[in-house]
């Protein structure tokens, strides 16, 4: 979508630089002159929000490293040293710890937005896959970061997750030994997790550059899923998108601040304030909230290797999404059936998250024993997660491929600027397009 560069260096210095390294031109073309569809809604501000999250995590992380002691003996106390003795250490640490959660909230919204508006479809498959890689790297980074304070949940979470890799035949045991740096989670494990936790964010930053590059080649999708056809369909990135993104970021920061300053430990687990003790296993090991749906999928499968494969498959299926969705219509705005199944998927993901936080054998409806199926009562969280897992995979592997062939989509407007307003569904919707917003 990025057409010919319109950048004209105005001073001798910029002219000199432009003919040697056109870096100002790159910035100008990417963030000032770049044509963006004029109908982007607030869900499109999450790209900017995520960039802020990444930068904030890297800056606070680098400062934390200056005071952190990556050893099994000293890690816990050094984190408390940051909280008590380092100037504004409490702020930096709470920003970093809650920043991880904020990062995941934003990335989940960003992914669901891509899913709903069909942003993964041609010509944006590579853009989508790069996003999936970023998400995978985020999962690894978040997990290793949670291990670093070396509290009870850090330690036993690391034990549970690293043991999962042992389920793979032949290579499994070697992988876990390599990850542990020994035969159990201990000081060497902490050290390699620390090294990787510092490395991976920069890999994320690298893939983000590719992600943005791919975005600027294919151009942004938009709520209508119709490619811009003329200048009337787009506005320059600056000031139109910049000011909207800035507003979105600022509102997001309010939510972030509420967590940092008023409920900094609400998203964590109390047990992680108990120093790691390999001899005492917490009654109930739960991962951070952003892994809970995958944890539920893992436990839904009665076989260990099967569970691990299902868990990785749940992310793997996202990589294949561009080829699983057979519909010619990009945006679900014009796909009433798909819209409904998308809403169910949303509920199912929340249910999976809920199941991940509960003990598998606990009753979903309290004090009600129904009948046993295979290994557990039907009224149990393990069965609830099985049904939910089935729908999760069913959505991607059955519903999306079949739906594209059988459903009758609503008429799609020709262009962004002049949508066919005869059909109510093609009228712009959402807060942005509401009449009172047309300034």
């Amino acid at each position, binding site marked *: 979508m990025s057409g010919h560069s319109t950048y004209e260096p105005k001073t001798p210095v910029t002219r000199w630089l432009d003919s040697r390294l056109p870096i100002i031109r790159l910035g100008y073309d990417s963030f000032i002159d770049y044509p963006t569809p004029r109908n982007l809604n607030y869900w499109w501000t999450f790209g900017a929000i995520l960039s802020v999250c990444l930068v904030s995590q890297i800056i606070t992380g680098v400062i934390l490293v200056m005071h952190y002691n990556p050893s099994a003996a000293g890690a816990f106390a050094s984190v408390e040293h940051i909280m*008590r003795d380092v100037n504004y250490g409490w702020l930096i640490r709470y920003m970093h710890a809650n920043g991880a959660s904020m990062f995941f909230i934003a990335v989940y919204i960003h992914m669901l937005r891509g899913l709903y508006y069909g942003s993964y479809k041609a010509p944006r498959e590579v853009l989508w896959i790069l996003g999936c890689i970023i998400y995978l790297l985020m999962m690894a980074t978040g997990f290793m970061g949670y291990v670093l304070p070396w509290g009870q949940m850090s330690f036993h979470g690391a034990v549970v997750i690293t043991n999962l890799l042992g389920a793979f035949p032949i290579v499994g045991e070697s992988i876990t030994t390599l990850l542990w740096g020994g035969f159990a989670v201990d000081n060497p494990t902490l050290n390699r997790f620390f090294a990787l936790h510092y490395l991976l964010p920069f890999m994320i930053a690298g893939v983000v550059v590719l992600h943005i590059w791919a975005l600027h080649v294919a151009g942004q999708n938009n709520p209508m899923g119709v490619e811009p056809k003329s200048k009337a369909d787009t506005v320059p990135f600056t000031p139109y998108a910049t000011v909207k993104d800035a507003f979105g970021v600022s509102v997001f920061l309010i939510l972030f601040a509420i967590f940092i300053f008023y409920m900094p*430990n609400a998203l964590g687990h*109390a047990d992680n304030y108990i120093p790691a003790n390999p001899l005492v296993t917490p009654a109930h090991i739960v991962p951070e909230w952003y892994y809970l749906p995958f944890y539920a999928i893992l436990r839904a499968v009665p076989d260990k290797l099967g569970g691990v494969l299902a868990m990785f498959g749940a992310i793997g299926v996202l990589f294949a999404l561009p080829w699983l969705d057979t519909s010619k219509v990009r945006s679900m705005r014009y796909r009433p059936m798909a819209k409904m199944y998308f809403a169910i998927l949303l509920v199912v993901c929340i249910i999976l998250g*809920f199941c991940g936080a509960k003990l598998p054998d606990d009753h979903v409806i309290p004090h009600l024993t129904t009948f046993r199926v295979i290994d557990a009562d039907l009224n149990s969280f393990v069965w609830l997660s099985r*049904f939910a897992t089935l729908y999760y995979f069913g959505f991607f592997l059955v519903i999306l491929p079949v739906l594209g062939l059988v459903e009758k989509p609503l008429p799609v407007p020709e262009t962004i600027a002049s949508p066919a307003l005869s059909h109510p569904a093609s009228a712009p919707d959402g807060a942005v397009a509401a009449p009172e917003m047309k300034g």
Partner: protein
Amino acid sequence: MLRKVSVIAAAFGLMGGLLAASPSLAAGHPLPPKDVHWSFEGPFGKFDQAQLQRGFKVYREVCSACHSMTLVSFRNLGDKDGPFYSEKYSNPNDSPWAKAIAAEYQINDIDSETGDVIQRPGTTADHFPAPFPNEPAARASNGGAMPPDFSVLAKARSGGPAYIYSLLTGYKTPPKELTVAAGQHYNPYMPGDLTGVWGGSHDHVPPGGFIAMAPPLKDGLVTFDDGTPSTVDQQAKDVAAFLMWAAEPKMVERKQTGFAVILYLLLFSGLLYASYRRVWRNQSH
């Protein structure tokens, strides 16, 4: 087939709603902590300095016989929002109270001239010394149980200070169907599962678990210098508040900073929204 899927999904939604509303009072779950009002609650909450001083006295005269608090140093007592803060001593190391309290403790050290192991009076830079030299010693003196360190205890228990208060005031005579091992005490607020030691009906397993610590507080056990009646309830509440301070000494600063930050962000968001409206004024979208 697709309709069937949606029916199943609707059932999920219904179940989700049900489980969100369900109480969690089954066997193996302790009682939820009592509802306590704290001065440090809410976005403008502050520690009550008199309460922190009383709580510190309870800690020092009762708890510290078994419980360490190794992450807190004496100077912290004189920190802003701490139990002995005074505007006169902006540097907590100058606080006469922090100095005096530190000097009452004996700290293990090495004589820098001779290299001998010695004990010397504490300074404000020292941390609170642990009552036992190591974990086995602590366990040996406490029937095999390890008294947890107090530094971050209020953050390390779900329910926080309300849990600590509830536990301290929640000791109960065990029901007679309950087999209580020697050196154990029944407490309905202690996490645990009593199903295995319960002789009564399976549907009425009592909540809570066993704790090795005997009820530590008694009416009048500590004399409060400000004349506050020294009841078990008061002692428990004050020591729980003190432990919240010990775990989160920067809480008041945090909340005050947060108020300014959020106020700023609200104004900034308002300005950005106005700019957004102005920039997009002549654009249909």
